[in-house]
């Protein structure tokens, strides 16, 4: 801890940061552009000029760039010095010379960092009277809109896109004030994090294209803290809504998880909410036709169904914890299914067990960034958990940080550290069947079938800890490879092993856990991370239930009269024949969902449920962190939260036949959570994921609209000119209007948007952090339910290693092993209802080993029939395997799957 003097005020600060950070942490308003907390300093924009004095006697001082000057003990600086002010005003005037006169038609307007900084420097009159340079824009695809005239050449975009996210198709072109940021030619930005340019760019060069179509100023939108539902990482988001429609999803800073960056699937995948496939009224099948019916009719119909016999409930890993638990309470544990196949369920439950048994660390995404050796086994993390992949990409920089520390270069000195790091070897080892986006930063990659990777994993574990089971009949090459990786991991201070259930292989996860546990013997900080498929997979693994196969057995035996399916498209889990059997065997199917799925056609009753933006609930991410999402949209009457629908169903039942207690008495979300905590002690801390509904700041609720939200007295006047009360929000501490408390100290789980005086852009976040890039001032968001196991892997208490080492995979002449090709855009269910994501996804292709020769198309015979697909050679794919896009070819994709592959004759017809 050091102290610096800013304009005569002594401010305690840290010694490993730069003066700009110190000034911002001290609450001073110092304008800047090129510096970004996650990207570090390069000193490109010259905007953060301040005066630094050499001592108390120094009256003259010298101008320094605050972002490039480290904090030194007792430094004396001045932001308000007239010379420094003039310098900054001059710099911004130069920047504004070519800035177009288009703020009214700019999507960045109202949350523009350039606007804020211009006002902050006091530049309000344009003196430049000559012509402005202009640029042609490019079409950058469905996510990002390009308007190059607005550029101030801070270089943040290329630094983020190339250096941070590892993209290669955005660059700086031309020279001096003609400098241009774009692609070599028009085309879609290929990186999975291109959407962050919208937030990274301090002005309106890169703006959100889908949001532009439904554009609203920031001050007009209601915000709510939310959690992304498109993978199991659980990135924190802010959802913005106006006129009861969702407008956009923004990043919400969570110091442990996503920090400043969100992947494109999370940012643009929300389109399913306003899609035409959305269910908005209860539907009842009457004479084979599904007819909209009032809510009361739907409930009466359900009550009639319930009298016919047993009710079985199926939830899904994409439903909130409260929804799952309420159905559990309605049907009872013996009739409650998780909606996953046995294999999926065993894998998620195994993941939960392995994580709870792991004696070392369970690192958060931010902790993964500081891992100095990473081993990824059999998981394309860039597709299944993109944000985690980005964290692993950052971990590669650890070696350059150590070099920089030795060279006494501060870590935030970005350009210098990256130059130093150019020679530093990577310590990321990737063992996957197919190429991944991380390959270009990996030290080495190894391509093999999942079973072979598991074998290699066990061999690595044995090489680290001789108490682990040995792998027999390993080839000398593999043995040497295992020894090499084991050595690299053991030499690290903070190794990390990552796997997941992409290939549905329990042995792969066990091998991973074995390596991590073996490492703990010498390195207690050794971390384990397992990637799960859906946003609440972990929550459901902790809740438990029957697999779908058991439900099928019960249905075939005629034991089920009513099946309640909540937020689950069974056709993605069960083959079409099984679904047809289920439909035939069960007389009444009740589907509670927000989106029309193929199952809805067969349902006797379809009930509209609220989506994540329209309800409140809790999700448990893959690292076991319970996080609450809050509603920004108040949907019209029949649409309601899942647990409220299930409660309504329970209330409609005849109490003498179905004695249900608890569920029917819950008044709000907090009571539902309290009941959950009673029933499942493991999940009890989830109650504390966010403050309860009665939380108040100075006796006030928290406002979810900005203080300057407009149109209050007119927005609904085409319906009724009378003023309507704002919608009630009984489950949350938020008021749905602009009335209420809002301050930088509010709890981290309850920040509905970022804005502080003079800071209207997302950069206002600096004011909400206790230190820049550090924890939020109001405390963390979410709570971890898993903690590392008590017992360390010692000789007294050895780790119970898994011993079922698989046999090596031997390619067959007539069949192939079909491996899932999980795609960032295309494999995930909900995001594929979002128009920009659909536009970004590509047609399914069949990946074949590069050595396999064949015509342009081949036929893959899966259980549901032959599929004629174009063939794409995949370098390194092991012999005897093919890559088939998950859920895009066969809707229900179960794996591993052995299938027959046929070439097509030249005529292109099936033989």
């Amino acid at each position, binding site marked *: 801890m050091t102290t610096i003097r800013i304009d005569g005020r002594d401010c305690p600060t840290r010694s490993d940061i730069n003066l700009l950070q110190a000034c911002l942490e001290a609450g001073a308003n110092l304008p800047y552009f090129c510096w970004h907390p996650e990207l570090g300093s390069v000193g490109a924009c010259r905007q953060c000029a301040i005066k630094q004095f050499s001592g108390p006697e120094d009256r003259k001082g010298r101008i320094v760039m605050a972002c490039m000057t480290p904090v030194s003990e007792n430094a004396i600086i001045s932001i308000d010095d007239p010379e420094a002010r003039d310098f900054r005003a001059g710099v911004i005037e130069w920047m504004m010379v070519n800035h177009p006169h288009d703020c009214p038609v700019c999507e960045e307007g*109202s949350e523009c960092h350039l606007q804020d900084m211009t006002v902050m420097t006091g530049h309000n009159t344009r003196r430049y009277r000559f012509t402005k340079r*202009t640029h042609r824009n490019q079409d950058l695809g469905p996510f990002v809109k390009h308007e190059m005239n607005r550029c101030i050449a801070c270089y943040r975009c290329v630094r983020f896109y190339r250096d941070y996210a590892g993209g290669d198709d955005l660059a700086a072109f031309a020279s001096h004030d003609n400098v241009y940021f774009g692609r070599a030619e028009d085309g879609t930005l290929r990186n999975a994090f291109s959407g962050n340019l919208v937030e990274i760019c301090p002005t309106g060069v890169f703006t959100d294209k889908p949001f532009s179509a439904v554009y*609203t100023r920031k001050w007009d939108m209601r915000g709510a803290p939310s959690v992304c539902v498109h993978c199991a990482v659980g990135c924190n988001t802010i959802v913005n809504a106006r006129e009861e429609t969702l407008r956009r999803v923004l990043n919400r800073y969570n110091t442990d998880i996503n920090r400043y960056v969100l992947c494109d699937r999370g940012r643009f995948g929300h389109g399913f909410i306003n899609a035409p496939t959305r269910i908005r009224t209860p539907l009842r099948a009457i004479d084979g036709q599904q007819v909209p019916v009032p809510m009361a009719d739907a409930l009466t119909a359900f009550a009639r169904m319930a009298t016919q016999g047993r009710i079985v409930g199926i939830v899904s890993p994409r439903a909130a914890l409260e929804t799952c638990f309420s159905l559990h309470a309605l049907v009872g544990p013996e009739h409650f299914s998780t909606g996953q196949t046995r294999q999926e369920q065993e894998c998620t439950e195994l993941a939960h067990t392995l994580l709870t048994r792991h004696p070392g660390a369970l690192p958060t995404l931010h902790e993964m960034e500081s891992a100095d050796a990473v081993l990824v086994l059999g998981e394309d993390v860039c597709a299944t958990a993109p944000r985690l992949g980005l964290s692993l990409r950052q971990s590669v920089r650890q070696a350059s940080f150590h070099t920089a520390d030795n060279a006494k270069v501060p870590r935030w000195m970005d350009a210098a550290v990256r130059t130093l790091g150019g020679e530093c070897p990577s310590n990321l080892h990737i063992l996957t069947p197919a190429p991944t986006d991380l390959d270009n930063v990996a030290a080495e990659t190894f391509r093999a079938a999942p079973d072979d990777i598991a074998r290699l994993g066990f061999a690595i574990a044995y090489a680290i800890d001789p108490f682990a089971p040995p792998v027999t009949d390993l080839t000398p090459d593999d043995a040497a490879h295992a020894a090499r990786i084991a050595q690299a991991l053991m030499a690290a201070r903070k190794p990390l092993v990552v796997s997941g259930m992409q290939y549905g292989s329990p042995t792969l996860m066990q091998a991973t856990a074995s390596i991590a546990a073996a490492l703990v013997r010498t390195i207690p900080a050794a971390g384990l991370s397992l990637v799960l498929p859906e946003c609440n997979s972990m929550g459901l693994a902790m809740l438990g239930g029957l697999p779908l196969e058991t439900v099928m057995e019960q249905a075939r035996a005629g034991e089920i009269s009513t099946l309640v399916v909540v937020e689950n498209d069974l056709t993605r889990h069960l083959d079409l024949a099984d679904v047809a059997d289920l439909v035939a065997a069960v007389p009444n199917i009740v589907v509670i969902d927000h989106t029309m799925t193929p199952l809805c056609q067969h349902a006797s009753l379809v009930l509209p449920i609220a989506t994540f933006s329209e309800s409140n609930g809790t999700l448990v991410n893959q690292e076991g962190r319970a996080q609450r999402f809050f509603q920004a949209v108040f949907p019209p009457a029949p649409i309601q939260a899942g647990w409220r629908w299930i409660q309504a169903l329970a209330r409609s039942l005849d109490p003498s036949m179905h004695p249900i207690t608890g569920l029917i008495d819950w008044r709000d979300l907090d009571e539902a959570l309290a009941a959950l905590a009673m029933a499942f002690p493991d999940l009890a801390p989830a109650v504390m994921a966010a403050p309860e509904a009665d939380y108040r700041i100075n006796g006030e609720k928290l406002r979810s609209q900005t203080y300057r939200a*407009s*149109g209050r007295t007119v927005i609904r006047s*085409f319906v009724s000119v009378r003023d309507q009360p704002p919608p009630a929000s009984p489950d949350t501490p938020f008021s749905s209007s602009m009335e209420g408390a809002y301050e930088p100290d509010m709890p981290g789980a309850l920040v509905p948007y970022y804005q502080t005086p003079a800071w209207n852009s997302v950069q206002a976040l600096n004011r909400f952090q206790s230190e820049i890039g550090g924890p939020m001032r109001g405390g963390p968001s979410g709570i971890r339910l898993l903690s590392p196991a008590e017992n360390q892997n010692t000789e007294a208490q050895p780790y119970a290693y898994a011993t079922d080492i698989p046999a090596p995979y031997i390619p067959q002449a007539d069949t192939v092993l079909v491996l899932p090709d999980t795609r960032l855009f295309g494999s995930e269910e909900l995001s594929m209802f979002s128009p920009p994501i659909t536009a970004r996804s590509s047609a399914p292709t069949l990946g074949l080993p590069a050595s396999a020769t064949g015509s342009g198309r081949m036929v893959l015979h899966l259980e549901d029939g032959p599929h004629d697909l174009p063939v794409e050679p995949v370098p390194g794919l092991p012999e005897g395997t093919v890559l088939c896009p998950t859920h895009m070819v066969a809707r229900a994709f179960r794996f591993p799957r052995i299938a027959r592959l046929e070439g097509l004759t030249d005529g292109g017809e099936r033989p």
Partner: protein
Amino acid sequence: MFNTLRTLLLTALHAFHRRATVQYPEQQPYLPPRYRGRIVLSRDPDGEERCVACNLCAVACPVDCISLQKTETDGRWRPEYFRINFSRCIFCGFCEEACPTYAIQLTPDFEMGEYARPNLVYEKEDLLISGTGKYPDYSFYNVAGIPIPGKERGASERERPPIDLHSLLP
């Protein structure tokens, strides 16, 4: 006594003064062009809507009686709907001051009485006039660096043609 008589006299003398009362509506008073009455949305000299749906009028409105939604055609921003609730409007003119394109203007018309309040909710078609209002020459897109049909990139006032990125000239 004297004071009472004086008051009576003064009052009586008013009978011979020039009348201040205007016989409205038979006789229309003069209202200056800057009088703050009924709000209109004006058009460019070329007849296109001036409003670019920037929302500044709505946010400036102290009684929150303006609401609109942006839409876009050929690079031109427009309001998809534009609604003013005149039963709430206080005719303060802040919206006109805030408008960066001279689209929203207050006119000297105040005869807006209605029997039913819903009739005071004006939609875009009720607000849009066919002329330019008080500012006959201004066209926002002539000065903004946004290309629209009929105006290429770099063709706005005080703009150079777009940069050729392949040029090697300094």
